[in-house]
């Protein structure tokens, strides 16, 4: 039997600690980074992280550098005076490496968004998770999704839910899918696809009132000043009535409607000339002020937003361009004729001319029961100006009781399985802070005479153990509390025009080591390269130090 060759550790140590090995790993490390920056430029930071910076291969190269640093130093022991700078550089690099490892393993890096005067303690982290909620049981299960750049098989099962695959970057391919749940035959759950165009643009619009249509398919869409409102087909005839009051009363569940005139309900006005209608409803009366709210109001003028009976005032939609679509019918207000118009649309039929800047609309598809759905297809993302313009869908394919389902970050899945309601979401991992924060004021100064921001500042209230303290967070001025550091990261404006602030939240236990290692690296480099050589040059006077193994770090 052939004897196994004894491992020559000395040789391995000499090779790993050699300058040639250093050149190889440094070059590989550089090559990875070059590819990473180009990937980031075309496909976004997340893709570059998943494809390069956080891959095992890149970690191995970094580990190779670490080994090279260690062995290069150990090979040059016992210490020599002329190599003190070299030892300092390599020790500094090792300490930076250890600090980075601690940050990687134990650090926290997330964001918290604060709305004015709304306390929040939830930090959103970067890891993708699949969250399964059983609302009736108050139970929640989460599982980490793989940090991969491409489609990844999972094959994990929880209860009756089999998690089959994860697409970190996907684009939606539009399809009509069967509904998951059952609905009565006359349920108003239709969806339509329209083609809209005017002098400046043309676009396909898919509008839906199907309860299973995800966030991609809404019943209201705005395009510049024009708003498209999609309503149940059953309501169209009330629009056609052209009743004097221009008020329609309808049931949001059954979509049945009538006008006050058709039921002989008087439209009265208050002393302040506000119109109202009183509708007998069972043993009660519902009072509507349709020019203010679609919901009935009680004696204290509080709206009942749970009411399925609602009132609609067409008058509110006459000033600005509003198009009402009811599947195969469309209604709009003509300012020229001072009246509401109703037009019929036929699937793949001619366009209806609208009264705004040569606009026209045609119906290309209509489905009574099928659900519009963007089927996730794996893709390579594309970024522009820091935002993904393609591939911004994260999707998980599931199998439940032999049936296939998709959950995306845009469309959570709600199911009734074996009598149990289940909500499944693709979301981000979160962390609850041991204290709460609330935004009291967000301030954005601008450069004089311009709209360019000069500073972003958040005035924050911190609630901890019954004590409230005020803090001021702005660029280059973070807030620190219980090991967490909060940085001004971003801001947004909600539909009411109020500013929300986003703070980056960070815990970095490896910080001190990274700083110490950095100092050692810089001072070591100065010592080794710039101080040592002066002495050496005095001795050698213009001769090469080419064969000195310790001359390079």
């Amino acid at each position, binding site marked *: 039997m052939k004897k196994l060759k004894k491992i020559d550790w000395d040789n391995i140590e000499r090779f790993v600690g050699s300058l040639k090995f250093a050149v190889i790993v440094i070059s590989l490390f*550089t090559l990875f980074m070059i590819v990473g*920056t180009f990937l*980031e430029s075309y496909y976004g930071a997340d893709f570059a992280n998943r494809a390069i910076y956080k891959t095992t291969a890149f970690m191995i190269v970094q580990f190779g550098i670490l080994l090279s640093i260690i062995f290069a130093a150990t090979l040059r022991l016992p210490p020599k005076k002329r190599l003190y700078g070299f030892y300092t550089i390599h020790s500094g690099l090792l300490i930076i490496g250890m600090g980075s490892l601690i940050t990687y393993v134990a650090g926290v890096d997330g964001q918290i968004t604060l709305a004015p005067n709304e306390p929040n303690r939830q930090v959103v982290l970067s890891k993708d998770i699949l969250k399964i909620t059983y609302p009736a049981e108050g139970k929640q299960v989460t599982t980490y999704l793989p940090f991969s750049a491409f489609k990844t098989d999972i094959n994990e099962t929880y209860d009756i839910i089999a998690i089959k695959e994860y697409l970190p970057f996907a684009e939606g391919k539009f399809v009509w899918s069967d509904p998951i749940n059952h609905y009565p035959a006359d349920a108003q759950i239709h969806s339509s696809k329209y083609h809209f165009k005017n002098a*400046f643009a043309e676009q396909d619009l898919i509008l839906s009132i199907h309860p299973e249509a995800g966030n991609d398919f809404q019943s209201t869409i705005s395009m510049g000043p024009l708003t498209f409102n999609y309503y149940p087909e059953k309501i169209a005839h009330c629009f056609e009535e052209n009743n004097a009051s221009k008020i329609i009363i309808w049931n949001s569940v059954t979509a049945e409607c009538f006008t006050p005139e058709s039921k002989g309900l008087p439209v009265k006005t208050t002393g302040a000339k506000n119109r109202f209608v009183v509708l007998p409803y069972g043993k009660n009366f519902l009072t509507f002020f349709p020019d203010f709210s679609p919901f009935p109001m009680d004696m204290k003028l509080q709206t009942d937003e749970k009411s399925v009976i609602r009132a609609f005032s067409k008058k509110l939609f006459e000033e600005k361009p509003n198009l009402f679509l009811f599947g195969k019918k469309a209604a709009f207000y003509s300012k020229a004729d001072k009246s509401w118009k109703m037009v019929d649309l036929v699937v793949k039929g001619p366009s209806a001319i609208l009264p705004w800047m040569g606009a026209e609309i045609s119906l290309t598809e209509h489905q009574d029961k099928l659900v519009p759905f963007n089927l996730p297809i794996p893709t390579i993302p594309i970024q522009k100006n820091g935002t993904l313009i393609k591939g911004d869908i994260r999707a998980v394919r599931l199998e439940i009781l032999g049936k296939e389902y998709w959950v995306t970050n845009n469309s959570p899945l709600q199911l009734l399985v074996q009598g149990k309601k289940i909500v499944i979401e693709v979301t981000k991992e979160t962390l609850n802070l041991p204290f709460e924060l609330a935004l009291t004021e967000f301030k954005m100064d601008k450069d004089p*005479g311009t709209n360019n921001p000069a500073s972003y500042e958040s005035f924050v209230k911190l609630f901890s153990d019954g004590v409230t303290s005020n803090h001021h967070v702005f660029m280059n001025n973070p807030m620190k509390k219980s090991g967490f550091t909060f940085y001004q990261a971003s801001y947004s404006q909600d539909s009411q025009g109020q500013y929300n602030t986003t703070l980056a939240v960070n815990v970095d236990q490896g910080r001190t080591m990274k700083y110490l290692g950095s100092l050692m690296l*810089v001072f070591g480099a100065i010592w080794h390269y710039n101080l040592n050589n002066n002495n050496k040059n005095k001795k050698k006077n213009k001769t090469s130090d080419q064969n000195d193994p310790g001359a390079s770090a």
Partner: protein
Amino acid sequence: LKNLIKKIVILLALSLTSLSFADTYFCKNDLENLPILQGGRVKPLYVHASEVMKNLTGKSKVGDLSAVESFCMLSLNGMGLPSDIKLSARVDHVDLMKFLGLAKDQHSILYEDLLLREEAIKSEARMIKDNESYKKAIGKLYDSIFLYKEIKSGENWLLAANINNHIEWQPLIVYLTEDKVIAQKTLTPDDPFLPVLLKSKTEFDRLNGNAKYELELYYAKAGLASWALSLTIIALATLVLFRNFNITLGFAAISALVQLVLIALRVTISGRAPVTNMYETVLFSGFGSLTLALILGHLKKEKIFVYMGLGYNVCTLMMLNFANGMLTATISPLVPVLRDNFWLSTHVTCVILSYGALALSWILSNTVLIKRKWGTITKKDELYYSNIIYTTLKWGTTMLAAGVILGGVWADYSWGRFWGWDPKETWSLIVLMTYMAILHGRHTSWIKPARFITITAGAFLSVMMAWFGVNYILATGLHSYGFSEGGAIFLGSFFLAQITLLIVTSNYKKDAILPAGE
């Protein structure tokens, strides 16, 4: 407002009967040191008018009229005063020329004609989907039309008005009221308008002081970058052609001093470290490398460092003087994250100085490549040059390591993480790693002195990518405040030229390298 403008026009018309400069009304170069508010800061009208006219037409002057005169004349249009001034936009994009119906050799079009087609241009811009460069070109043209309209309406010229001892900035059409003109007419009946405008300066100076914007006027007019270029070229010529080192040293020192004054003026005017845009980083890098070369040359008693410093300094000053499409000298307010002078003056200056030091090695290695291919060089020379290059690399990498680390500390302080694989950060590390690989490799049999020189010349491409490429080509990441346009062609040409030189000089006659001592 219409009535007010009418009255002003009548007053002006009456005044003009006694004026000899009717063709330019009261638009005179006396207005050039008038403080105005534009782009988020107070500056002299001369600076703003020059920038605006250059932006609109590609040139500061319009015919015989100065930038101030043309800006003023155009602004008076908003008050209904006719003028013969006709500005043309420069159009180079082929698709845009086609859209505007321009002939192949016709690269300009009158703004007045563009105004008539404004809606069509807007509509065309909306309809472009895939052609990015066309979209950018038409977007830029649309911005220029907007600016032209703003100037013509008198809204672009903001003058300082004293409202209850507080400065309020008012557009020309609001500032130039009938009351002010009539009141002034009693004092200077021949020319009441100019004194009314100049009063804006008096009031601003009284309430706010005048030091900075007046200084900016001198700075803008001094043309220090051109002076520095001339001095550096003379210094280099005396060294290369006449081999008179003392005269070289004199001119090099004066040029460095002029550049120091240029930097100091920008620091005083902007109130921040001089490394906040591409213009300033190129300026600082050139100055820094020349200074470092003079110091190293003095310490090491090596004249060649002065040659390297001057060689690179010429390149940077050429860019400052002639690459106006890519590097703009405009001083603008900073984005919020950069408003920290400590970090600006440590991290950015350190990185830019390191690029300057590495550029010294690039100059010498390319010189050796050329000399080796088309001249003669000894083994001893080659070793000597490689040692000189090695010295600059050591300085460059040490400063770069410090700069990268300081950047990490600043990022940790501002964004909450030491390292985030942002392209600017990553490319600075790529440069460091590239040079570290070369430094390590030099001590192996892989990189001998001859190859070391070639590799060092090529390695500078990584510096150019980190410095320009991230901004002009990658254009992504958190350092977006540094992104700009117009540099991709420059960078592409640089890469092409360097790679061509490397290829052409790779095949040199070995006997050109004479043995040591011959």
